[in-house]
């Protein structure tokens, strides 16, 4: 057996596990937790197109989640338009907003960019909280929108059990993973990486860095908005404070950084660690020691960064490679590359 075959086998194994999970995990609670885990992995992967490849740190992606959720929900509540269609409309609107955000902010560097995206997202939240109607559309300001139970089924994007949601988000996640993998190996991926690391040098090599970043931003905001619709249909309630929140924006970015920024597996690894830590610590301590779960969450963030400042992906890849090497009985040389990572 050679390395390629092992990789393929491992991939198929993971897929089988992912698709078979609901057959084993019967508890709706745990399935709920896993659905949200995938949801975050999906968001982070979409985020990665900008935050990972383009080398900037957006901290306002919750705005796109909000745009997606609000668009499809308003269209479905007021005009009976299927959320599936609304999802695409939301994606398009988010893309436009994303590009509008990108135009001024991509001129900024480092911390300025990060903080400017926070301001953008917060600005959108404040606007949503302040308007009850946009023309005929009922946004309902700070009171949020509730989706009343409709007939369940694929068309209404509403189901009685968790399993359909599970498979929808799983497929979405796989698609977006494939897309990022594909992009990372394409001209756009090279251009984004180069432009993110040394913009001046990249320009001299024929790269319109701003345009490459805008393309990435457009794709990222489109994909992120799709998940917004999913979230709205899954939780049946959207509220500006929770869906366009800093918490959500931060968590997306943190999952990426904890998992390994700019890598394909990073978002999944990050979500696999952070989501359960968040959920289970709240379950165990939420009632007896209020706040304890956030202390634990904070500690985990700090500890991971202390021991793996580049994220979990690096050591785990190494581990996997050495496992594979042992399997095929070949000793791989150390030869670990060292280098200056970008900030």
């Amino acid at each position, binding site marked *: 057996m050679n390395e390629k075959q092992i990789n393929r086998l491992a991939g198929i194994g993971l897929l089988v596990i992912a698709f078979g999970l609901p057959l084993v995990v019967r508890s709706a609670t745990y399935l709920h937790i896993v659905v949200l885990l995938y949801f975050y992995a999906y968001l982070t992967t979409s985020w990665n197109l900008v935050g990972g490849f383009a080398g900037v*740190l957006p901290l306002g992606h919750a705005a796109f989640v909000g745009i997606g959720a609000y668009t499809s929900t308003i269209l479905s509540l007021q005009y009976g338009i299927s959320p599936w269609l609304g999802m695409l409309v939301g994606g398009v609107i988010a893309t436009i907003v994303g590009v509008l955000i990108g135009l*001024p*902010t991509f*001129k*900024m*560097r*480092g*911390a*300025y960019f*990060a*903080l*400017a995206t*926070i*301001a*953008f997202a*917060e*600005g959108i939240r*404040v*606007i949503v*909280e*302040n308007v009850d109607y946009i023309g005929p559309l009922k946004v309902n300001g700070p009171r949020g929108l509730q989706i009343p139970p409709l007939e369940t089924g694929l068309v209404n994007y509403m189901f009685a059990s968790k399993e359909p949601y599970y498979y929808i988000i799983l497929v979405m996640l796989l698609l977006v993973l494939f897309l990022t993998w594909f992009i990372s190996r394409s001209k756009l991926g090279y251009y984004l990486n180069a432009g993110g690391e040394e913009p001046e040098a990249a320009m001299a090599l024929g790269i319109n860095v701003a345009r490459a970043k805008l393309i990435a931003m457009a794709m990222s905001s489109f994909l992120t908005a799709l998940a917004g619709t999913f979230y709205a249909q899954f939780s049946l309630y959207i509220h500006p404070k929770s869906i366009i929140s*800093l918490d959500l924006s*931060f968590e997306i970015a*943190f999952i990426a*950084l*904890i998992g390994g*920024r700019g890598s394909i597996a990073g978002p999944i690894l990050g979500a696999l660690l952070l989501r359960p830590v968040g959920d289970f610590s709240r379950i165990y301590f939420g009632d007896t*020691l*209020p*706040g*304890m779960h*956030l*202390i634990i*969450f*904070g*500690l*985990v*963030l*700090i500890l*991971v*960064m*202390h021991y793996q*400042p*580049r994220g979990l992906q690096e050591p785990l890849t190494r581990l996997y490679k050495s496992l594979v090497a042992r399997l095929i009985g070949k000793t791989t040389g150390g030869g670990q590359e060292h280098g*200056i*990572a*970008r*900030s």
Partner: protein
Amino acid sequence: MLYIIEDTINGILMGSIYGLTAMGLTIIFGVLKVINFAHGSMLMVGMYVTYWAVTLTGINPYLAIVIVAPVMFFFGYYLQDIVIKPIFIAEKNVREPITVIIVTTGIWYILDNLTLLIFGPQYRSLADNPWRSKMLEFGDLFISVPKLYGCIIAIVTAAAIYWFFQKTSMGRAIRATSMDREAASLQGINQYKIYNLAFGIGSATAGIAAVTLVPFNNVFPTVGVLFDIKGFIIVVLGGLGSIGGALVGGIIVGLIESVGPQFMTATWTEAIVYGLFLVVLFVKPSGLFGQKHDW
């Protein structure tokens, strides 16, 4: 007309206090190149220290600075030394180690919730605080005394810090480290000590800001969050790393918040702040007083 004057004065006073709450953020960024997401929490800790210092010893709330500033300095110093420094050592070659912001966020969660666990969720304010409702009255024009003190303290603090950075040997060493960690170490500067120091100074200014806030504000575990985002806006508006910029940024935000409601509901002024923020950045991506080369 009188209204405008009154609101403008309030905006400037409150704004300079905002500037003071954000000053530590800009100092820490200037040196460590790190956004300290725990800055609001440092402010909160400072408010608790002030509250207890005044409640237990009964000293004048403004005199509490002599207790709070040093306590917060050491708190920040050792927090950086123990929790953040290892990351800097691990990421020697990175100029702006982004991983540190995760750590500072972790500190934020921990501090806020540890406070909740220890002191409970109660809202506290100084009992029989003589400054609480002190106002200067000029006919119909009211000026809040605690805010006026806050403004003066903010300006004095900013001037002192500026002087320290420009004119002292340690200040120069701090500036040098902020530009090139490695080259600074070749001048005999212990970069990690400088980082501790900068973090300590940043925390001490949060402590001073806390002292100005406690006489007219509530103390509770999540109070820092209220000042967090405002702080980010302020420092970016003023230019990251610029002390005077923080003050000016704070005053701009204070003015919008104070004068804006004459023309719209208070909830919209927030949106105006964000809007203005983005316009400024669009025109001047490094903020009003930011260094172009050394963002």
